[in-house]
């Protein structure tokens, strides 16, 4: 070994130059590497980021809006009863492996994770299965038409077809690679996978035969840099071009630095305070109202979000609710809070609050948020005991049946109020994210009916009714809607989207 290495060492030291890769690459830093590149297996944002450039869905969001437009589908029509959805597919599209995209690929993509016993089922069951539960059947009608038969009319099905699992995969590649498909992804997207060195980098090269507008940047290298501080340091030194997880406390200096800049965009991410509705005193509406009245969300925004959030009074962020019904702003009034608390039979002034000890998009500084709640509630005479947990333990703790109050949040998957009310508050969701165990017949009924109500005016009424009920009972307390923040080198322009990460929307600054 040594004998082989020594001459090489001499050669290398002699010829040391700054040789790097021949393509000019955009280097994008994020908090963690992908765990899979199989769309059907994807569960969290870090995995989703990469596949949104590798694959295409049938429909997508137009520009940086949340309006829908066709992608692999040129257009679509609903049958009058709303139970059949027909897509006309784009012609002449090819997968990265050269195979043709047609209706059989669409059918294959959906059957693969929806049909029990499918021979090419992904190894991890599709975490987003529930978002496709309304689909009864997907069938090809000729090579360029696909018909989705629904179990009931669905208002949100088109939105759900923008989700990760709905990215169309190459059936040939799935069959060829089998269990190794997650590391050999083949889609039709604007970038294709050049190499994946696990935990080090994912290299994406521009798909030169892409059917749509080609990305401006030839090569994107996505690298995990766990610590945001380190990532920002690398950004300042020019080692990376984008940091998508900057610490909020650094935003000001990054914006002032001549080499870097900061962009923000609305997001569909909210934070809230949840209660165990089966346990006293949390089950008492007067108690919850008192807590809500005692929390000054503007202060919370300044303390725990560095002003990069917006106080909310409804669990659905204003951008999605503005056309539905007016919502009065949150109320902060310590005297009223004390009055409300006086109506509660308290055995002890001590209550418990569960909080995370790790940052998430809706809680970039979870300890500060928890301390804020503690301080505010002390003002109305409550002593809060804080109990913090790390990631894996927290997910379990707040779902335990005897939990107290808890700080949590939600990153919506689709831009529709239903994606807040149903998973977080509907009786059906008690075993997943509705950890408050809220199960109110009026609320449930309004939400369920709104899911199939195709008449927009009637749907608004149903949602408004659900909101009224929510406000009355206050099963959870909405805190703030969070903005997305991204730090960039001034050499790079990137058009942020409220929901998706699109590497193909980046370009070199002029």
């Amino acid at each position: 070994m040594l004998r082989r290495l020594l001459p090489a060492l001499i050669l290398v030291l002699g010829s040391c130059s700054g040789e790097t890769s021949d393509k000019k690459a955009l280097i994008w830093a994020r908090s963690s590497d992908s765990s899979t590149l199989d769309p059907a297996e994807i569960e969290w944002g870090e995995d989703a980021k990469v596949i949104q450039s590798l694959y295409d869905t049938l429909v997508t969001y137009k520009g940086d809006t949340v309006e829908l437009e066709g992608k692999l589908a040129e257009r679509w029509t609903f049958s009058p009863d709303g139970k059949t959805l027909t897509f006309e597919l784009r012609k002449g599209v090819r997968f990265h492996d050269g195979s043709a995209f047609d209706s059989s690929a669409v059918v294959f993509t959906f059957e693969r994770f929806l049909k029990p016993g499918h021979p090419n089922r992904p190894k991890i069951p599709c975490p987003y299965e529930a978002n496709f539960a309304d689909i009864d059947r997907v069938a090809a009608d000729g090579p360029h038409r696909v018909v989705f038969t629904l179990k009931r009319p669905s208002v949100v099905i088109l939105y759900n077809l923008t989700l990760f699992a709905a990215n169309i995969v190459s059936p040939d590649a799935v069959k060829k690679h089998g269990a190794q498909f997650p590391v050999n992804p083949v889609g039709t997207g604007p970038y294709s996978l050049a190499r994946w060195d696990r935990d080090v980098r994912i290299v994406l090269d521009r798909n030169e035969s892409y059917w749509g507008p080609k990305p401006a940047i030839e090569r994107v290298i996505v690298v995990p840099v766990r610590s945001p501080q380190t990532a920002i340091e690398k950004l300042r030194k020019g080692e990376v071009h984008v940091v998508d997880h900057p610490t909020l406390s650094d935003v000001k200096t990054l914006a002032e630095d001549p080499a870097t800049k900061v962009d923000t965009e609305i997001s569909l991410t909210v934070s809230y305070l949840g209660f165990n509705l089966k346990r006293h005193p949390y089950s008492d509406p007067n108690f919850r109202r008192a807590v809500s009245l005692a929390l000054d969300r503007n202060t919370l925004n300044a303390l725990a979000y560095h002003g990069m959030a917006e106080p909310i009074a409804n669990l659905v962020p204003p951008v999605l609710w503005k056309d539905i019904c007016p919502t009065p702003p949150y109320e902060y009034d310590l005297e009223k809070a004390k009055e409300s608390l006086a109506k509660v039979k308290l055995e002890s002034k001590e209550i418990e609050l569960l909080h995370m000890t790790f940052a998430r998009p809706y809680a970039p500084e979870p300890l500060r948020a928890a301390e804020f709640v503690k301080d505010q509630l002390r003002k109305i005479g409550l002593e809060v005991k804080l109990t913090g947990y790390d990631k894996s333990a927290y997910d379990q703790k707040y779902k335990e049946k005897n939990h107290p109050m808890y700080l949590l949040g939600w990153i919506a998957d689709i831009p529709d109020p239903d994606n807040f009310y149903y998973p977080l508050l509907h009786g059906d969701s008690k075993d997943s994210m509705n950890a408050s165990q809220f199960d109110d017949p009026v609320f449930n009924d309004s939400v369920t009916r709104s899911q199939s109500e195709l008449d927009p005016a009637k749907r608004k009424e149903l949602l408004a009714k659900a909101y009224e009920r929510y406000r009355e009972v206050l099963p959870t307390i909405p805190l703030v809607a969070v903005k997305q923040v991204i730090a960039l080198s001034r050499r790079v322009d990137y058009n942020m989207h409220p929901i998706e990460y699109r590497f193909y929307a980046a370009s070199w600054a002029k």
Partner: protein
Amino acid sequence: MTAYVVRRLLFLPVVLWAVSFIVFVLMRSVPGDPATAIVGEKAPLEVRQRVRRERGFDRPILVQYGIYVVKLLHGDLGESFKHSSEKVSDQIARKLPHTIELAGAAMAIALVGGLMLGILSAVYKGRWIDYVSMTVALAGVSVPIFWLGLLLILAFESVLPISGNLNPELILDSRTGFILVDALLARNGAAFWNALQHLVLPAAALSTIPLAMTARITRSALLEVLESDYIRTARAKGASPARVVLRHALRNAAIPIVTLVGLEFGYLLGGAVLTETVFDWDGMGTYILTSVRETEYESIGGAVLVLAFMFVLVNLAVDLLYAFIDPRVRYGQSEA
């Protein structure tokens, strides 16, 4: 000698079994649900239950352990739950060389620095060099490694890379897994220098404790030897002071030093968690840390087993080195 080695090797499975059992039970007693870690908190209950059933998380813990041990006996360390399509053995094969590289570099710094300080302070006992060296050594064992790491980052961030193993745009095919070696094999000078630069700070931070301990033990072992008769004889014979220390004294002082270095190397392999975290070094330490966070039972089990295995082997190698250093040491024979 052979009998001794065989006996030591026979002991290895017992150690590994104990380690695997302890890790298995510990991991399952801390809160956290692997099914939620795999499909996420948003997944409906039935999906989470399906995962639990399919992966056997719902079975009694001893049954789960039994299945795990049977797999281990077939040489299968299991698979990553979340990183679909990846085997634990592949992950470890990728991470372990990085950690060995880091620990090796740290050990090299520690040996050179530690021996130098130790020899100087033994030779100049009671003089200012001695006090300075021993103060440095004391600081080395006392300073918390993560704090030192942060200080190093603050001091050198403008000249040296502060995180990772290699710049991302430098693409290197992995042949041996050791980045420096791979860079040499690929004759990629840029990658070699870059990797070397990345190695400096974490290796320096990691080297402080073994450096300090080597310095102290070298000093005390040397002092003891320097008092002995044969050293006086050597001096009387007219051997140069350097020759007396390096040739006559150091070799006889070597056994405690080698023991310590061996043990330290074992610790470095497993104990680099803090250093690797501070410097975002892609190795066994960060691997274990993320595996714990993601409730990756089999990754943690596999990593700890491999480290225990290496630790035992390093110790055995140290024992065998004794015989090489000191011909009076012979194993498995009664002393005449």
